[in-house]
């Protein structure tokens, strides 16, 4: 190939398939119930596996006897995860697993496993730092500027305590896989956000070369950051399969265990002192914060949010991770950002109320501290969001709204996120019959990855959307990477663009002689290969492909995240959201009336799916802001709401009208593609928490905005 094709995106106005509101590719399969998730697979001779788990939050296994389980009719294999001597650090820890012919037998057998424990003291709650003892070790003090002097000089100082609890991912499809280990090779069908490297993570644990581990997955029932590796469960499924002579084993966690051990968002607590000028300029921020991510601690929200690295002139921070005897945290849709946004925006709103200023104006001052390239974006967004939320007319000073016992309030939340693209390889095959196959070893989490890859490929080849077939979901395909950090769309769109244009360049070479020009004089438009500037000199796509002859064209394309692709993908987005709520001061019930999101974006491949991502992030956020909280019982060490009736999720009636303003414009488009899975999920607790404070005149410091928390705040009780 003589010349490297120009991979840059076609100008916005020239795009024919990209930018279209095409319906999701896997919609019919999902809406008809025919989509087969890994948990739906029932291969021949399947064994069902069930775990026996620890009822104690902290204990030592002193004796384990699996003999009765092993002798049960229908039991094919038993695996002990926690042999005698193992120290258990949280309830729900895996003790042993049984694989049997039916799920019922497996459950019975798991119950027959006799385990004796030496129960040890536990700590399962972190709200009271004083009770954490040795489980809480403060980090170093981080100081910038002269906070003490800044507080002395400040026109106003506000102090407050805030908290946001541990919540669980609560993926609807629990974590697990179907695994078959035969001889020296393993076939795995996991529920994962990472089809490409799942095998690499399993390989060392089972001593099977990664190349011998095949991974396939067509659909995944939710991940949100919690479903990357095989976990212990993938390994145990493999071991059970091997013990059972190579029969496939299905091991998916039950709901209770899922809620306890398959991931959660760390909590964050903070005592914040914030000071500034009468004009709304914040000059100093001080926080003593603590958080838990489970036994390994973790959870360190970047406060003061957005402003910390960029311009907040004075701050003092001390953070204390708290180790507790509960399941470990995992990445949760914009890790640490929700907590940081909530803690920071709550303190800012309270400061605004203290100086009797419209928080919109205070936030406009605060965003001066955001990265320089975002300052104007945030200001525009604040104005746009205020306009869409009818802020000027509907906002009122804190607690001064109209109405009787049901109070109205509005609140603002800020968001930021990275994005970029993950490593991705793509192969495009053009066949002599004109058919096109695009292959990437990626996964579609429900974000629309299938659809947008197909759109990019069709656009690049000058074909209609239906002219491209796509294969994803296997580690035998060209390597992609984990879908995390909103990096998938940035990676796959660029690898697809490059791969399809590389293939097209080859097609130009075989078609050029027939058109009597050099290959670089050709373009692919509307299903034709034609001479640039002479649209009449053309071949149809089909006749051009016939000239491929007996072979086929197959070309790779790659995006390497270490080599940026300016203009093709980018990272760094801003977002502003405004909640409009009603609070019933007699019942404590918060109802979101209307919700506005103004979202910064890059090049949008499919506005329908981009909007769905934003809606999804917001709806999930409303659920967390109103209902969600992991409840741990200090007495027993157990999770009390390890289910879905007491671990509450928002339902259809809890969701208001949501207004999404996606900032599609030329200037943003030129940045290239930016992922939107996480950015819109950041500021909901902040916006709703602030709206509730604005409504009822006092801060409800502890998320979620549940009736008990609201009534506590109204009664002046600290929860």
């Amino acid at each position, binding site marked *: 190939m003589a010349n490297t094709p120009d991979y840059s995106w076609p100008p916005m106005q020239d795009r024919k398939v990209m930018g279209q509101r095409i319906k999701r590719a896997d919609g019919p399969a999902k809406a008809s119930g025919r989509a087969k998730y890994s948990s739906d697979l029932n291969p021949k001779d399947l064994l069902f596996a069930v775990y026996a788990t620890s009822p104690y939050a902290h204990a030592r296994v002193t004796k384990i006897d699996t003999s009765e389980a092993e002798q049960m009719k229908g039991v094919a294999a038993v695996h002990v995860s926690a042999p005698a001597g193992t120290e258990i650090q949280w309830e729900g820890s895996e003790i042993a697993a049984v694989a049997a012919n039916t799920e019922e037998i497996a459950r019975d057998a798991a119950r027959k496993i006799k385990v004796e424990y030496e129960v040890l003291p536990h700590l399962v709650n972190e709200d009271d730092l004083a009770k954490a003892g040795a489980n809480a070790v403060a980090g170093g003090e981080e100081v910038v500027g002269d906070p003490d002097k800044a507080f002395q000089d400040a026109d106003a100082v506000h102090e407050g305590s805030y908290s946001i609890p541990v919540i669980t991912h609560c993926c609807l499809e629990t974590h697990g896989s179907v695994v078959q280990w035969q001889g020296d090779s393993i076939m795995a069908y996991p529920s994962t956000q990472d089809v490409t490297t799942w095998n690499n993570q399993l390989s060392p644990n089972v001593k099977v070369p990664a190349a011998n581990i095949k991974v396939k997955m067509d659909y995944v029932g939710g991940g949100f950051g919690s479903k990357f590796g095989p976990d212990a469960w993938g390994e145990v499924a493999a071991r059970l399969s091997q013990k059972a002579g190579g029969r496939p084993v299905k091991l998916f966690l039950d709901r209770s265990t899922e809620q306890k051990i398959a991931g959660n968002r760390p909590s964050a607590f903070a005592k914040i002192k914030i000071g500034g000028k009468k004009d709304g300029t914040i000059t100093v921020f001080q926080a003593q914060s603590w958080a838990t991510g489970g036994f390994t601690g973790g959870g360190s929200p970047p406060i003061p949010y957005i402003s910390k690295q960029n311009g907040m002139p004075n701050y003092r921070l001390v953070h204390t991770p708290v180790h507790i005897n509960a399941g470990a945290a995992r990445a949760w849709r914009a890790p640490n950002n929700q907590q940081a946004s909530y803690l920071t925006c709550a303190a800012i709103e309270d400061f605004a109320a203290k100086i009797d200023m419209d928080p919109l104006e205070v936030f406009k001052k605060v965003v001066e501290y955001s990265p320089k390239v975002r300052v104007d974006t945030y200001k525009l967004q604040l104005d746009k969001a205020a306009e869409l939320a009818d802020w000027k007319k509907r906002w009122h000073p804190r607690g001064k709204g109209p109405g009787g016992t049901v109070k109205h309030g509005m609140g603002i939340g800020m968001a930021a996120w990275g994005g970029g693209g993950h490593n991705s390889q793509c192969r495009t095959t053009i066949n002599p019959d004109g058919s096109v196959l695009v292959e990437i070893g990626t996964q579609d989490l429900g974000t629309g990855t299938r659809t947008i890859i197909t759109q990019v490929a069709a656009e690049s080849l000058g074909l209609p959307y239906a002219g491209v077939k796509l294969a994803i979901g296997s580690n035998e395909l060209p390597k992609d990477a984990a879908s995390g950090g909103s990096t998938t769309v940035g990676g796959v769109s660029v690898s697809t663009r490059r791969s399809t244009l590389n293939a097209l360049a080859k097609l130009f070479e075989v078609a050029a002689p027939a058109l009597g020009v050099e290959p670089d004089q050709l373009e692919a438009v509307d299903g034709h290969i034609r001479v640039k500037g002479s649209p009449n000199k053309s071949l149809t796509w089909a006749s051009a492909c016939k000239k491929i002859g007996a072979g086929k064209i197959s070309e790779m394309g790659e995006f390497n995240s270490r080599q940026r692709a300016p203009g093709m993908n980018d990272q760094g987005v801003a977002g502003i959201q405004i909640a409009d709520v009603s609070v019933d001061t007699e019942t404590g019930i918060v109802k979101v009336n209307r919700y506005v999101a103004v979202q910064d974006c890059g090049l949008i491949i499919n506005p329908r799916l981009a909007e769905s991502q934003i809606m999804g992030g917001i709806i999930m956020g409303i659920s967390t802001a109103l209902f969600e909280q992991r409840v741990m019982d200090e007495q027993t060490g157990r999770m009390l709401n390890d*289910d879905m009736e007491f671990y509450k999720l928002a339902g259809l009636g809890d969701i208001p009208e949501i207004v999404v303003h996606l900032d599609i414009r030329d200037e943003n488009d030129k940045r290239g593609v930016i992922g939107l899975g996480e950015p819109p999920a950041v500021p909901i607790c902040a916006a709703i928490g602030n709206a509730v404070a604005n409504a009822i005149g006092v801060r409800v410091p502890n998320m979620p905005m549940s009736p008990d928390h609201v009534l506590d705040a109204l009664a002046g009780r600290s929860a």
Partner: protein
Amino acid sequence: MSSKKTPEPARPKSGFSRRGFIRGVGLGSGALGTGLLEKEVTAAPAGAASVAGPGPVPITLNINGKPTKLTVEPRVTLLDALRNHLDMTGAKRVCDRATCGACTVILNGKTVYGCTVLAIDAQGKDIQTIEGLAAPGKLHPVSQAFWDNDAQQCGYCTPGFVMACKGFLDENPSPTLQEVEHGLGGNLCRCGTYVGVRKAVLEAAKAIKAQGGKNG
């Protein structure tokens, strides 16, 4: 209605029983309402064993109009029978205790959570699952509306939502938005597709009416 808990007495040789009588006089479920009595009418088909189990028992389920034979333990739920024994995996197991609706199927015209109905109790009843809504390659108007309105992301809740929506529209063909929110409040989604779902249900109602009210 204490009879619900009373073990079924041996069926008289004559075949005359209270259930047989009720069936015999031709009282439809409409006349009996939706109380326990209706459930009893259809709970035990003629000839069923009075005590089942504890081991696996052969049963016949009438699924999507087709009698389907299988052998399950009496404790097996309808959901697990469909998923684990019949490879009908449209209905999903999510909460496994009647909270989330992912396992919704339609039993004698009523939406039920498949995780809280025993397979043996579903004998003699008309079981509709999502697999029966439309022929392969075709979409039922409700499924179509879910696709058209992007009322799905990961899609794991979608089959349950579609079945709940179908059952809801069968009972209430012209719902208001408020009725939709109430009527489908028993289904949960984690990805956040509710805005699409609300639109989908209203649009499906219109589409079904446009087809002359025929809803699958």
